[in-house]
């Protein structure tokens, strides 16, 4: 179950049209390390997690990522809402415009459509939590790259906020991994998969 609150998590107030920047930022909507991927990954991994509090954390972070997706979408929307044909053509936004006009559609900066192929739900607690640690770092790198390239403070402020969130989430997934390890045998964490080998886990 989810309940919507009619506001953004972080304010977005962009006053200048810039389809070029929109083309870059849209990657954090539909790109391989984007917020949509992140949300779907965590919300998918929850079901088979052996530790309840870790399922809870995945739910809460997966939910926050939806709010991040909304921030990114708001940025793309505001960067293109007064778009003219000339601006679209000059900024290389014309291909996007032909297929979607000014509508929001999840794709990567290079134009590849959003795909579930890019995120993982492996059904193994250690594997998935390690995946999530890497995923938060990948998203942080994308924000680093955006911050090197974008100079407008109206756009940078939300990106800086989102970048910090990746670091906080990394810390929490690390703590979740520690919690999961506590339920396993430190002599060999890989003796069985706690998400699959129920009997082995019970006998252990």
């Amino acid at each position: 179950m989810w309940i919507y609150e009619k506001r953004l998590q972080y304010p977005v107030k962009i006053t200048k049209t810039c389809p070029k920047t929109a083309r870059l930022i849209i990657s954090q909507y539909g790109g391989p390390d984007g917020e949509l991927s992140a949300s779907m990954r965590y919300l998918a991994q929850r079901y088979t997690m052996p530790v309840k509090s870790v399922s809870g954390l995945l739910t809460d972070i997966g939910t926050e990522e939806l709010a991040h997706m909304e921030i990114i979408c708001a940025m793309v929307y505001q960067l293109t809402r007064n778009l003219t044909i000339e601006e679209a053509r000059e900024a290389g936004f014309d291909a996007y415009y032909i297929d979607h006009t000014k509508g929001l559609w999840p794709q990567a900066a290079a134009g590849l459509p959003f795909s579930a192929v890019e995120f993982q739900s492996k059904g193994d607690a250690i594997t998935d939590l390690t995946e999530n640690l890497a995923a938060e770092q990948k998203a942080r790198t994308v924000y680093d790259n955006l911050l090197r390239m974008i100079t407008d403070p109206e756009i940078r402020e939300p990106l800086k906020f989102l970048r910090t969130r990746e670091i906080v989430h990394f810390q929490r997934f690390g703590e979740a991994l520690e919690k999961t390890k506590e339920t396993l045998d430190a002599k060999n964490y890989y003796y069985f998969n706690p998400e699959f080998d129920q009997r082995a886990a019970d006998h252990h």
Partner: protein
Amino acid sequence: MERQEHLAMASIPVQQWGELYEQARALSIGTIFRDLDKPFFASEEEFGNIPRSCPSQRPGDPGQFEEAMNAPEDCGCGGQKEGQSESGGCAEQTQNASQQQQGRECMMLQVMEIGFLLDDIRLYMDTHPQDENGLQFLKQTVQRRRQLLQEFAGRYYPLTMDCMAQLYEENPESKCYCWEKGPMPWEGACV
């Protein structure tokens, strides 16, 4: 918490409760925890700053924003005044924003700040369920958030179904419906 490192396994130290940022700073940085504030060099080179002016924003005095919130606007939610012009489109520029809009945006910022304190403490509690400091902070913030959401609904428009239900309870004549009042969240600077 005792923790051992082992071969062939990642280890992350568990965070200890530490210094907290006040709410405006926390939102602008992206965490309430000073220990998790790790800026990027390119975000340090300032290209300019957004002035987040809110007359009520006084450091160390986060709860006392009400008095400074001048000119509460009648959003028509009480059902007394109808036919007020809703700023729907993108025609108005920020400079021309009425005092009402400024008041509303100021209070919205407070809602975001308090909402964010909860977002961050929630994740901390997920991995530190026994933490006394965290629990205390959570309880206080939940209460402040509820009050603020009710006040925002009363002055401007409801942000949640619960706030709407509360408006109906207080005023059965209310004609306020969530989506019709106030700008959509992604409209940003124009409304």
